């Protein structure tokens, strides 16, 4: 862009946002109809997803092209950084809602159902849920979903913790590599990170299989099953997203993108990766360990 904007790049005629809106519109309308039992809705949902992916390719492709041609100055770079940070903050708050649900159920509503905590809870317990003693994990006084075995922290969850922690290490090594201008080294460390990420997701899938078929622990297993699967499920989804981001960064590195002092996409993906890492630690402590 010319010096007229002080070097700050203002794009014109953005066509991708409207494509994204149409994609999400079809996606949401489709998913809503699908949930109501319509097969057309299912098809619409997939079409919406496909258009969304197309939009992302197009939009990110444009941005990458602009970035590689040196369109962005340091101030634009700073805008990207701020946006990524605040986006991650919004993600933190999204997880906070589900952690909040977990803490609330464990600290307040669970004991109240079991007749603890005063304020008439004992009477409610005697009248409505006679004989229900609260112990976490619980699937509630009505034994929703039937008897289940909770997921312990040892075994797969512990392995997953080690996988993610090591992936944080490899990711940092990749960062140091690109900061030294060693693109090839970065690609290798990133390959390790992405691999660890996908192994994590595979382990998670295995764990879900175990839970569903051997532990009778399902999404419908009362509040324990709800919080367990929603927290780990959304986390797993975020890990997948983060791994895809890192994969894209890796592929770009192989194409010769990024330099020692221009690699914001790498850093954004790395921040995101560390964010899912930290969320996992929260999960490991509060969902598995205690």
């Amino acid at each position: 862009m010319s010096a007229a904007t002080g070097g700050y790049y203002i794009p014109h005629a953005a066509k991708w946002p409207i494509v994204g809106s149409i994609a999400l519109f079809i996606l949401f309308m489709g998913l809503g109809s699908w949930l109501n039992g319509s097969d057309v809705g299912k098809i619409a949902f997939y079409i919406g997803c496909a258009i969304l992916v197309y939009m992302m390719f197009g939009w990110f492709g444009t941005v990458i092209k602009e970035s590689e041609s040196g369109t962005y100055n340091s101030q634009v770079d700073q805008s990207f950084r701020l946006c990524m940070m605040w986006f991650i903050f919004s993600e933190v708050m999204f997880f906070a809602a589900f952690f909040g649900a977990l803490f609330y159920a464990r600290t307040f509503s669970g004991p109240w159902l079991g007749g603890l905590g005063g304020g008439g809870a004992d009477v409610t317990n005697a009248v409505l849920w006679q004989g229900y003693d609260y112990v976490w994990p619980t699937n509630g006084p009505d034994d929703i979903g039937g008897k289940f075995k909770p997921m312990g922290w040892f075994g797969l969850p512990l392995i997953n913790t080690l996988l993610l922690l090591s992936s944080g290490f490899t990711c940092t090594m990749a960062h140091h590599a690109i900061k030294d201008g060693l693109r090839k080294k970065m690609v290798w460390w990133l390959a390790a990170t992405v691999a660890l990420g996908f192994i994590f997701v595979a382990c998670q899938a295995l764990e879900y299989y175990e839970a569903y078929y051997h532990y009778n622990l399902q999404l419908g297993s009362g509040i324990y099953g709800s919080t367990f699967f929603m927290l780990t499920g959304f986390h797993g989804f975020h890990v997948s997203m983060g791994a895809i981001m890192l994969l894209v960064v890796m592929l770009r590195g192989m194409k010769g993108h990024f330099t020692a002092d221009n690699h914001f996409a790498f850093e954004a993906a790395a921040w995101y990766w560390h964010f899912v890492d930290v969320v996992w630690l929260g999960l490991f402590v509060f969902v598995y360990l205690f």
Partner: protein
Amino acid sequence: MSYSDNTHGEAHHGEHDDHGPAPGLMRWVTTTNHKDIGTLYLWFSLLMFFIGGGMALIIRAELGAPGIQFVDPMFFNSMTTMHAIVMIFGVVMPAFVGLANWMIPMMIGAPDMALPRLNNWSFWIMPFAFTIMLSTLFMDSGGPAGGWTLYPPLVLQMGDSFAFVIFAIHFMGISSVMGSINIVATIFNMRPPGMTLMHMPMFVWTWLITAFLLVATIPVFAGAVTMLLTDRFFDTSFFSAAGGGDPVMFQHIFWFFGHPEVYILILPAFGIVSSIIPTFARKPLFGYDSMVYATASIAFLSFIVWAHHMFTTGMPLAAELFFMFSTMMISVPTGVKVFNWVSTMWRGSMSFETPMLFAIGFVIMFTIGGLSGLMLAITPADIQYHDTYFVVAHFHYVLVPGAIYSLMAATYYWIPKWTGNMYDETLGKWHFWISTIFVNVLFFPMHFVGLAGMPRRIPDYSLQFADWNFVATIGAFGFGFSQLLFVYIIVKCVKGGKKATGEVWEGARGLEWTVDSPAPYHTFETAPVINESTLTR
């Protein structure tokens, strides 16, 4: 809306370096210009204002007399629900974002928003999201009818439209979060040298804090409605006691979003009023620093008061006390603000153009709403007032002669800058006085019927409430139809009128008044020099 041809004495660098707006409809679809996007937001919210207002008139028509006269109770309930959703998410929030788009880059001297493409998407989600939301009214099961707060288990009993309501909320949430992130990045990153944080216009400050609230709470709301969705379709037990969950938990999560949300709806209004009063009092804003700190304090407190919406739902006594006192504490920074506005006017050379009338109307009537809020904060008293028309009176006083008045004030204040034409001052004053009379006829009697025990969200009521309800209905139709005058004034101003100068208002300070009227398509492409005369403080 017409813009002056943009000629910056600079040759075009190529087709991608176009400085003027592209012709035709695609200009609006693909625009990345903050002024275009601001205009889109503002027109959108004006349209939604009449859709939401039409729903309000259906409600008031039904409540004009005891008994059921026009609509069936289910439809009545979906009208109260949709009226709230449309007015909150479709009118007040997008209108504030529209103002942010138009004004923030001009106020801080930035060439545009930080991420213009993202900005385009933030707007272009809204029409699609509201298509989904409003389409639920035409589904077999009817629209959502359990109140905009979507409390389970009632909301889970909704028909086929349930999933669409949830997804429409997700969809709008994406827009809000992206829009807010963009605003934060713009304010932090796009200021020229000299425009320090503590020299920013108050409107920019209040929007910075509002954007923070949005980024922090909209995802929580998204999480809450996602739990509703899985409870309904995927057998989870978040809000079912039988499975160890708790319906009250939804209320906690919802109001953790919902209470900051009400400040999202009012903080930018504070910023607007803090811009207008100094102009027409011809004095700088009194207590700028305390205004900033008060805004930040309100934002902080908004996170620790949520359960005052749930005093009758059931909580441990200690929680009731905590939330009562924390809620009352909000009146301290709010009082600081009202004090500062009054002190700004004190011994000022006041003149009473339409924006000033609306701003003063805001200060007075918002304070009425604030005082009834203080009454509602008292837990034992709230147990009496809860779910009555007193609550309805309270939040309509802060939202209609509060938030909506600030939007009208902002429109009159900045429309000469947007269009280059002065609006019709006589008609503007008529608009203010008619609106102000009817808005009080509409909402003031609700205090009386509320204190006498009339419940909200019910289409029928006891005979003793009949007279005041009839009065309120007259007020509603008077207020509703007087807004047609508002549209007429806007359209007339867009089409033509007395040419506005760059400064527009004698005594107006701030960078937006240093550019021509109408503002050129691109402003501050090179950073302006900031000095005493261009700062608002």
